Structures are given as structure tokens and as C-alpha cells.
């Protein structure tokens, strides 16, 4: 069935300073299909879709809709052509209602000037029923769940007459249950004639929902194949270009005493809800404890509480024998905790500081970095030189601002700082987010090194592969509670199931 494709991108090239984000990319979308766009972080998927949605203009190439070339210079043009996008970070206004968000810029009017709220509500309900996306039009967006917010985003696109829907990593913020519901919705939309582009780097999802798969690697299209008959391994090979080493080489250790102990921990989040409920865990010296879970299930609050960045409502936290339950961050760090935060730009580094200053972010308080309140710049520089060499940080001297380094090297700086502090317990939160494969391998090697040296390592990651390959023990967190302990030989399905809150008994029944 060789029908003309609905949408065609030909020879799209887009350059940013220093990188070729899209290199002569050819992509087409057939009417009524779900076409997955697959690739690693930084492969160019989002750039391509931003071009399609009018947010960027391509340097070369053309876009054809139903065979005719179109200009997509703005999002308004894209919307007019029937292209709608659901972004990874939602474009919703938190303080406004669902209806207001959906009708924004295409509002129904009464007497020409006034906003017809009743008509808006009615239209939202109509759409909602037609596509099975249940939402409350009057609810404030910041009061509904993430899954519901995503539905609002989809309704927003449908309200504007989108025939082509682009979904950018839609399951990143959903529980597996919500992801299943999303796939149902997508199938229903498909049945009603919509065409969907689905961006992802999750191989299992791609296989489940897509009709065809296009893989991007470093801005270039590797191949476009039918999803039927593909396997996760074949997709992975396309994505990365070599056999992906899914497991890191690890030798067995003999874990010692528990260095981090968390007992019956309860933590409240920013909205006043319980993010962590009565959670207990312990990490022994010489082991890596991995915590798996869908984003926003309490991991961040757990780490913040342990690190002293968030008050603890109930429970106890002990680091190497010292009770740090109500300690401030400074004291917890002094007690022997190292913390590699999950966002190196926002939390790990001060980008405007030099590498030497960044490396001193915890050590500056004490000799030899400072004496009686005065900094010892020479000591700081010397230490920086040593650490930069030890951790093979490239791209700068101790006097270079951290912003000048690449992501991987920046993360090395963070690692160097935390590890040099000689912590007993090391928390690593999403330590390889946004890094290229070489940097990922470096980070993994270092973590294993530290584990071998007898430290207790708490690893929190959204990537199941990372958890499975690094951890000695795995705990799954769901809605602030631990719902299962697994050995590193567990399968992704087992972990995924636990991440939805299911238990083995349920599975059997």
C-alpha cells in the first residue's frame, strides 16, 4: 500500500553553534499511523520536532503536507496546518483552569468582546467525551495530577484542530499505569484518523505503540523500519551503533556495616502532601543500593531529607553513626555524606564560578582552603589542579568558569568534589542524565570504584538499565513507600510492575 504520506520532511538540516543537530533528515508520516522517533539524549529528535512545530526554522530542507510544500515559520502557522504538539515540559498555566488553558488564543466569544466561559466549558466537555480524555474543565491546573495535565495538553492540541499530534517523551512523567491509559487514548485517536509522532528513548514502549520506527543518531537518520518484527536489541543497536553494554563489570564485595540508616521516614513535599511515608532502608559500606521508580514518587524528597535540605516530619536518619535527622545540609555533609545532585546546572555547580571555586564548594570552610574566614587561594588552586588531573576533566584550567565545560566534564567536576570529600555515604541522583556514552561509562566506573573502596552508595535513577547494571540491591519506590526489594538479576518487567505499585501476589491473582 504505497499511498502518499500525509507529512514529509525532506533533507532537513539545522545547525546550532558548534553542533549539527539535524543532518539532511528525511522523515515521513502516513495518515492514521503512529510513527515513533527514537534516539538517545541529544540525538536531535526534539530539534526536528521543534522545527515541525514552527519553533525553529531549518537551515536547509523542506516540509510537505499532503504533497504541497509549506512554510512553518511560527507555531501559529503549524497550528493552522493542523499540527499540534504535547511538550515534555507542559505548556500549561498553573493558576488557570483547564478550560482556560485549552481555549487560550482561540477563545469562544460572547457579544464579540467577552469570553464565553459556558461555551468554552461545553466545547471542552464535548472534546473530552469524543476522545475519552476525561478532565474537569473548571479545575485549576496546578491542582490536578500529572496524568490529567497531559490529557489537558492533548485536548489543547485537538481543540485547535490538530490532525497530526507530536508527543515529546510523553511517558517520562507517567506511572506505568498512566502510560497504559495513554496508549489506549493514542489507539483511540488513531482510530479516529489522527496521525501521531511519538518521541521516545524507551524501547519497550516504542515496540508497543508504534507502527513504524525512525531512529536518529547524532542528527542523522539511521533507518526507518516497521515496528513489527523489531526487537529491543535491534532497536538498541540502531540507536547506539554498537552492542550496548547493558551491564558494567563488577566484582563481588563483602559489604560491611550499614553506614546510612533511614528509619520510618516521613517527609512532606512543597504542596503539603506526604511525599515519603514511613520509609526505612539501610545502605552498607561496600554496596550500591539502587532506588528505582517513576519520577515524582518521592525519590527527590527522600534524597533532600537525607541530605538535610528538607525538614523531616518523622523518623530518623543516621550517617555513619551520627544522627542527622534534623541537621542542616552543612552538618550532614560534615558528618560524612557526599551528594551528587540530580541537576548539575541548577544544583551541582555554580556555572559562573571557576573550576577551582566549584571544587571548593564544601571544603572552603575549613583549612587548608581557608583560615579564620580568609580564603587560601593557592591551596584551592593546587587542590583543583590535582583533582582535574585525577578525574580526567577536559576543557579547562582551575581558573576556567565551569560554564565553559561540556556536560560530561561538568559532571566529572561534581564527582571529583564529592569524592574528594572522602564521604562515608555517597548519594548519586540521576548521575548520568544528559551525558554521552563515554561520560556515562566514566561515571559508572567511578561509582563502582567507590563502592569497592568501602563506601555506601545510594543510587537513584530513572533509567532501569543503570539501576540494574550498577546496584547490588534494588528497592522500588512508589508513592513514597518502598514496595519491593529485588536482586540485580531482576527483569525490567518485574521492576516496572513494582513501580506501578503492584506486588507479586497481585500478579499471580
Amino acid at each position: 500500500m504505497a499511498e502518499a504520506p500525509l507529512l514529509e520532511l525532506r533533507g532537513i538540516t539545522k545547525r546550532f553553534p558548534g553542533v549539527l543537530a539535524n543532518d539532511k533528515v528525511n522523515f515521513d508520516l502516513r495518515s492514521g499511523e503512529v510513527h515513533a522517533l527514537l534516539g538517545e539524549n541529544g540525538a536531535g529528535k526534539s530539534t526536528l520536532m521543534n522545527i515541525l512545530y514552527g519553533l525553529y526554522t531549518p537551515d536547509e530542507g523542506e516540509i510537505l503536507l499532503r504533497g504541497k510544500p509549506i512554510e512553518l515559520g511560527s507555531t501559529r502557522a503549524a497550528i493552522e496546518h493542523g499540527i499540534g504538539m504535547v511538550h515534555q515540559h507542559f505548556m500549561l498555566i498553573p493558576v488557570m483552569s483547564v478550560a482556560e488553558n485549552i481555549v487560550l488564543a482561540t477563545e469562544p466569544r460572547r457579544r464579540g468582546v467577552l469570553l464565553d466561559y459556558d461555551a468554552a466549558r461545553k466545547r471542552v466537555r464535548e472534546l473530552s467525551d469524543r476522545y475519552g480524555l476525561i478532565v474537569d474543565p473548571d479545575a485549576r491546573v496546578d491542582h490536578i495530577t500529572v496524568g490529567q495535565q497531559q490529557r489537558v495538553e492533548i485536548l489543547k492540541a485537538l481543540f485547535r484542530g490538530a490532525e497530526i499530534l507530536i508527543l515529546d517523551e510523553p511517558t517520562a512523567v507517567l506511572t506505568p499505569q498512566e502510560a497504559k491509559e495513554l496508549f489506549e487514548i493514542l489507539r483511540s485517536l488513531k482510530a479516529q484518523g489522527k496521525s501521531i509522532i511519538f518521541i521516545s528513548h524507551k524501547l519497550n514502549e516504542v515496540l508497543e505503540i508504534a507502527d513504524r520506527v525512525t531512529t536518529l543518531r547524532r542528527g542523522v537518520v539511521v533507518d526507518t523500519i516497521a515496528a513489527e518484527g523489531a526487537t529491543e536489541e535491534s532497536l538498541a543497536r540502531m540507536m547506539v551503533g554498537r552492542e550496548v553494554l547493558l551491564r558494567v563489570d563488577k566484582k563481588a564485595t563483602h559489604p560491611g556495616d550499614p553506614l546510612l540508616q533511614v528509619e520510618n521516614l516521613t517527609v512532606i513535599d512543597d504542596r503539603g502532601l506526604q511525599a515519603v511515608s514511613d520509609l526505612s532502608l539501610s545502605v552498607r559500606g561496600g554496596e550500591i543500593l539502587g532506588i528505582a521508580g517513576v519520577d515524582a514518587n518521592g525519590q527527590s524528597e527522600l534524597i533532600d531529607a537525607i541530605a538535610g535540605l528538607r525538614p523531616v516530619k518523622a523518623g530518623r536518619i543516621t550517617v555513619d553513626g551520627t544522627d542527622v535527622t534534623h541537621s542542616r545540609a552543612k552538618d550532614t555533609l560534615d558528618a560524612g555524606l557526599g551528594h551528587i545532585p540530580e541537576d548539575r546546572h541548577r544544583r551541582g555547580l555554580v556555572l559562573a564560578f571557576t573550576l577551582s571555586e566549584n571544587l571548593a564548594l564544601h571544603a572552603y570552610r575549613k583549612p587548608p582552603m581557608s583560615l579564620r574566614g580568609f580564603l587560601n587561594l593557592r591551596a584551592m588552586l593546587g587542590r583543583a589542579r590535582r583533582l582535574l588531573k585525577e578525574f580526567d576533566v577536559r576543557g579547562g584550567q582551575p581558573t576556567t568558569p565551569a560554564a565553559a565545560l561540556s556536560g560530561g566534564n561538568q559532571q566529572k567536576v561534581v564527582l571529583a568534589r564529592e569524592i574528594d570529600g572522602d564521604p562515608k555515604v555517597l548519594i548519586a541522583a540521576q548521575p548520568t542524565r544528559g551525558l554521552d556514552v563515554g561520560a556515562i561509562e566514566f561515571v559508572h566506573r567511578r561509582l563502582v570504584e567507590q563502592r569497592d573502596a568501602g563506601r555506601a552508595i545510594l543510587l537513584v535513577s530513572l533509567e532501569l538499565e543503570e539501576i540494574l547494571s550498577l546496584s547490588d540491591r534494588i528497592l522500588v519506590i512508589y508513592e513514597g513507600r518502598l514496595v519491593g526489594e529485588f536482586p540485580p538479576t531482576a527483569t525490567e518487567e518485574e521492576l516496572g510492575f513494582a513501580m506501578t505499585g503492584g506486588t507479586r501476589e497481585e500478579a499471580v491473582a
Partner: protein
Amino acid sequence: MSGADDNVELASSQDDVSQLEGTLGPAPSTHFASRFDGFTGIIAPVLTTILAFLVGGLVVALTGKNPIKVYHAVWNGTGLNWFFHVGSYTARIPFTTAHMWFPWDTASIAAQNLQQTLLITTPIILTGLAVAFPFRCGLFNIGGQGQYLVGTIFAVWLGTSFSGLNPFLHVLLVLLAGAVAGAFYAGIAGILKATVGAHEVISTIMLNWIAVWVGAYLFGQGGPLQGSQPAIPISNDIVEGAKLPVFWGLKLLQGLSVGIFIAIAMLVVYWIVINRTTLGYEVRAVGFNPESARYSGISVARNYFLAMAIAGGFAGLGGALDITGWQYRIGENDIHASTIGFIGLAAALLGRNTALGVGLASLLFGALINGTSGRQLDPSIFRPDLAGNLTTIIQGLVILFVGLNLGGLLIWLRKRFST
């Protein structure tokens, strides 16, 4: 924290572009403090100043006067021309009766003008530091005026009391009181920011006006600190022993007090604290990235408070220096008319929050204000009240153009037209 934050969003998104921002240069920070760091070049401030004076001259020309003549008259009034008249003179060594050879004439008209200029520069340096220090911490202290006023209030209060106290101690007490009072006053805004996150711009604007009206009340007719003449809303003079020694010129003719040295010393203190102490390190870390600072155990709240309090200390000290240095009293009208705090703001912005920059910019504004004042300017060339407004216009233009980061603009232009 709700709301979209474009730049930070980029940093944590998976988009390829975010990985590049690092290789381009400083990643855009949401804190304007990062734009004013370091002595990245004298080009921008010089350009800014020239542009401001050009536009100011345009205003003068558009209203039918000769800008060259006006600026020349102003220049002579500043006393800066004193440096250009090198010769062979004798000068009296301060605080002694001995004389020595000196390349400049210390008793000329230009010398007297220069004394005035430096007298005005003194508090500007301090109110400038009062803006620069919190800026490094990411805070916008627009309350220098109120903090300065609080310093003057306490200086007058303590200066008019305790007659008979040892002069050295009295001066020290008055200066300390001014600084501490200013520190406490600014500390209110600091605490509000640190605890409930109240925006320091709004709270300091309110505090400014509260200080103005409370000060007007205190020294106005019937006010508790009004002087002994009930019809005049002015305080008493401070006691002789509370006055700063004058080392150049005559005290009666408002010679230059040693206050200028204290001000310059404060510039040095500022530089040392910001660049060489752990406090300065924390302040800068919080200014660039409060989240990362927090994650490393630095107390953001504590630094917000300290930055504001230290700023208030600078401004309050400025007020005390003015009172003990040449004003010796304060009246209700002075309180309403004073704008030193805002001039310090312009100086800090022009000087890019560095010690040397603030010093030079303060000198520029001190010279400008003195040169256009009624004392110095020949009314036939240009009316002093017009000149005063011209100064305000130039001040506004400086602040306006400073924000443009003209140096960066120039570099960008050069890059753009070289490819």
C-alpha cells in the same frame, strides 16, 4: 516556584542545545548578578558615560543653550582641573604647622572645588557599596537612601548628645552608631527576604519612604529631635568633639575631612571581603546560583540577611560621615531633598559592582553634582536649578545605558560584522 523559567529549563532539558550552552560561554543565568561580575573591562562604563553625557548635551542644545560651554563651566566647578595645573608650590602638612614642597596649589579655587567634590564623593562611595555588595549576592538593594538617612538620624542624635566626651571616642561612637543603625534597618529587608521571601525591592522602597517621613517627623516642627529653635525644623548642631578632623582647607569653609579616607578604606574592605574571605565566597555563590549554594550546605537565608545588613552598614556609615564631616546638623528639608542613596545606585551600576569601579564612578558623580551646584556654576551660563535637573537626567541616562551592557554590545557588533 511556579512559572516557566526559560533559561533554567534549557539547562535541564534533554535538548541538544542545552549541552552546547556550556561551550558558548557563561550559561544565561536568571540572576542579573552574573552580568555584573568582575572587572570585565572598562569599555562599557566609559562608553555608557560618554553616551549619557552626549544625550544630556543634546537636551541642553535642544533647549537653546550651548552644551560645550555648559560642560566646560561644570568641569571647572568640579575641581578636577586642579590636577592639570602642575607647578611648584608649598603646602602645609595636615595637622601640623610645617610646610613642604608640593606640585599643586592647595589653596586655589580649583583646590577648593576639588575639596567639595571629594566631600560629596565620600557618601556616594558608601551608598554605592551599599548597592554593590548585595548585588553580588543577587539582591537589589534600592534602599540605600533610607539606610543612609537612618545613619544620619542616629549620627545627629548621638552627635548632639554626650558633649564633653573624648573626641576620638565620640567620633567613633557616632560613626559606629550610624553604621549599626543602617545595618539594622537594612536587616529588616534582609530578614523578610530570608524568611518569607519578600522581594527586597518592594520592602526597601517602602523602608526608604518610612525613613523619610519618620526623619521629617523627628526633625520637623514639634518633633522630638528638633533643635532649640522652635520655628525652624532643623536639629541642633553636633558637638564640636563629634566632628571629623578636616585635613585640607578650612573647617569653616567646608574643607575636606578625613572621611574620604574612611570611604576609600571601605572600598578596600569591600574588595577584600568579596574576593578573599569565606563570607565573600558564600555571597558570590548565592548570587550566582542559590540552589547550588544550598546544596553545598551554604545557608542562603543567612547570606541574604548578612548581605543586606552589611549594605545597610555601609550606607549608614555614609550618613554618619556626612554629618560628622561637613553637615553637622540635619533639617526636615534636607531629608526630603536628599537623593544620595540613588546616586550611589547609579555609581554601583556604572562601576559594575567592583571596588575600583564604584570608586571611580562615585568620583564622577561627585564631580558632576558639585560642578552643577549653585555654589560653583555661573548662573549666566546655566541656571543652577536647570543644572541640577540636568544632573538628574544624566544620572537616569547612565542607569538606562548601563543596563544595555554596551561593552558586550560592542563585542557582539564587532563579531557580527566581521563574518
